[in-house]
């Protein structure tokens, strides 16, 4: 058995350290060594998009990234999207709230990957068209929803984020 490697990274905004077997992918590091099972897997071959996370803000398939490539980088997973607090609307990112409200998560298995992909899209484009949304999530397979409610939830989240930005400006 080969010796563990060690790395430091920023994980969901906090500094983190990890010790792991050198063959491990970022997906395996997150799920098996760091206990972040919110990131899912459907193929571990880069085909389904379920394992998408953000690395330095870019959506990446964590099953195709070696963990050791992540030294010093910022990794963001579904666990880092909202605060997780309780109360009305509190604790959820507008994308998470819109997905929950509008039926964009049925079984919820592809959801974390789509949320991360959508977050990256909305970071670059405040009001993406339906076509742009379709394109952005085309690498994420969903077998439950038929995608309609996912498109609508991303559009709704863009609206809510826009409204939040406006109210911040007004303050």
């Amino acid at each position: 058995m080969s010796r563990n490697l060690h790395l430091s990274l920023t994980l969901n905004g906090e500094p983190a350290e990890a010790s792991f077997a050198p063959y491990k992918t970022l997906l395996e590091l997150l799920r098996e060594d760091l206990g972040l099972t919110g990131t899912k897997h459907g193929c571990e071959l880069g085909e389904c998009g379920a394992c998408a996370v953000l690395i330095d803000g870019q959506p990446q398939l964590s099953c195709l990234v070696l963990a050791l490539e992540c030294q010093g980088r910022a990794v963001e997973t579904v666990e880092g999207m909202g605060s997780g607090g309780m109360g009305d609307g509190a604790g959820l990112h507008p994308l998470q709230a819109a997905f929950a409200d509008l039926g964009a998560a049925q079984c919820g298995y592809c959801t974390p990957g789509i949320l991360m992909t959508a977050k990256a899209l909305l970071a670059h484009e405040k009001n993406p068209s339906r076509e742009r949304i379709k394109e952005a999530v085309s690498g994420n397979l969903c077998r439950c929803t038929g995608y309609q409610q996912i498109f609508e939830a991303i559009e709704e989240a863009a609206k809510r984020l826009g409204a939040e930005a406006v109210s911040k400006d007004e303050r």
Partner: protein
Amino acid sequence: MKVLGKPRRRVDGRAKVTGQTRFADDIVLPRMLHMKLLRSPHPHALIEEISTEKAKAHPGVHLVLTGKDFPITFGILPVSQDEYPLAPEHVRYVGDPVAAVIARDEQTATEALDLIAVRYKPLKTISDPQEALQNPEPRIHAYSELGNIHRLQAFEFGDAEEVLAKSDYVFEDLFFYEGNTHLPIEQHAAVAAVDGEGKLTLWSSTQVPHYVHRALARVLQLPAAHIRVIACPNGGGFGGKTDICNHEMVAAKAAVLLGRPVKICLNREEVFYLHRGRHPVLMKFRTGVTKGGKLTGMHLQTLVDGGGYGGYGTASTFYTGALQTVTYELPRYKFEAARVFTNKPPCGPKRGHGTPQPRFGQEVQLDKIAERLNVDPAELRLQNIVKPNSLTANWLKVGSIGLEQCIREVVERSDWKRRFRKMGPGKGLGLACGSYLCGAGLPIYWNKMPQTGVQLLVDRSGQVTAFCGATEIGQGSDDVLAAIIAEVLGIDPFDIRCVTGDTGITPIDLGSYSSRVTVMMGNAAIQAAEKIKAQIADAASGELGVSPERLTFANGKVGSLSFVEAVGLAEEKFGTLGAVGSYKPPRGPGRYKGAGVGPSPAYSYTACVVEADVDPATGWITVPKIWIAHDIGRTINPVLARGQVEGSVYMGLSEALMEEQVFRRLPPRLSGALVHKIPSLLEYKSLTSLDMPEVDTVLVEDPDPNCPFGAKEAGQGPLLPVMPAVANAIYDAVGVRIDELPITPHKVLKALELKRRGKPGRVGPESFPAVPYPEPVVVPPPWEGGDGHAVKGSERPKIRVPAS
């Protein structure tokens, strides 16, 4: 209605968007070991020797198991107990598991698989139904009915031949529906552990924890009361997790032997081998019609490719003929079916279970009939719809039918009358309908006990906890449970805690299959909630001096009391509060052998119009829009109901255009084995977000008295009309008939080429082989003096169950 019918966030929605939903592979236990299975590289072979010494000696390996460790068979149906957890001597498809390694981690287990040596003696491969019919030997299973024919079925409800001979027209058409698979994004996983009391717990991505529980008791020879099966929320099911799986049995045995938790998660390739998906079915329809467009009778023959094991196959085969009668009136009906064994991954139930294949044929044939009779296909269907509250030729009791309104909705919204047959070259519209069960009438194993139960815990804190064995597979069963109880008790669904899918602490529910959960669990939930409500009303009425029936339960109040206060008074008066409810469907009126498949408490109905653009130069098919109207009885949560309908449209369109589980023979120098074409998500084509058209969804509400608040199913029925509507739209666009699925550009081009050469513009099966169907069981239909029994002497002796 206070809760039902209003759009709401589902009760488990928050967990799903925060990554907190705990799927089976998310479970990690202290001292947990990992398991991998060694699978057969041969489609058909005998195992001569397995040597595991090297694997056992590999550092980090704790246990190696083979078929010798599992003398007892299992199977989902009592009539097909034909699977071993690990094959002891006979492998029947590429991927059949033969050995298991349990090691400290997945990597070590995978390494050790390579150290197991298996000597196989290859047998002749039976690759398709034609070969199965021609080659009774080598037998894939000794218990099959005739050679490699697993099961034969034949029924005649009235003299179909006579009525066809007298009909103005008889349409004879052949159709083929290629097999395809569920492709849930979650790969199957299971964790087994022995608890502190020495009892076994299995967490699994299963739709049927109760049946897995029963199989574990049988295979491991443990008392059933010492086993607990927890169905984790499934990351998609679609029928792919309704069978009992080898890996569940083997992981449990390993945990029992080692006293340590054992986990297995299948990789994607293995999920393709596990399969249990849509059966490939060849069909021959002969349908009689009057000049006025009334159907007179039908003779349907099906030939079903079962793959390597029985599984649900006997039921699937019945379903290729059971529901032809519940949509359009068929005065007489003859149905003959055969399921063969082949050396491929076993087929089973996928969304629609056995009915999408004949539905495709029936609805495309109706399109051909309408064209020949020069009537609008929508009108032809409207004039043949089964009457509500009637019996069918095969003795199914049909209740509410919202199909007429469904057809009118999609016709109007798609502007059908103005556009059908008038859209110009390359553009077309197609219409089709469907109907489906709201739960199978009978349980899988014969018993008179309830099929589902709900237990409520209510106490002075105001908490309401609902326990039910129902399995959340994404469809929203927890939300349905909470919504129905909330409706009865007048509280918010979010104030209810759902504890579901756990055979150790929840009452029985048979599983998330046959679209049974809303109707059956919902009826049990109403019963339990009404009992609690009566106690609360009794106690509160004493306090308020109002008669119990005048008290309203709404908005968290009972009359003028808060719900919490009212519950406290009830606890004071009656002691600890609790109530149970259960449900079992009414017995169907059919009394003949085989009448057990088809009855349901209610049937859902759907109509669909598909618009298709076809490029005649490339055959490329684009679907810009689909209109669908589904008779759901009553909508519980419109957000989820719409999701079920549109998810069905997606899956149906994907099956219509591209999904196929197909196989190829390796070249002789590479063993000549029959292997899966490419078992990967990339090569198994399915629609992506870019391919998905706009969907216009209408929920039609025709409440059924057998259903909770009238609510029918929504998860499977809406898939059924999509595939034939696509085929009919392609015909409208370019005038060619593609009578087999999937409809690929290649097939469209081929049909266009045939048409150009003056031949029939059709691609599809050309012949139906001679199948040795038995003499039919003769059952007179209700209107010919029958009482639901078969004519004496026409029933065949019972099929023997193989001993294990």
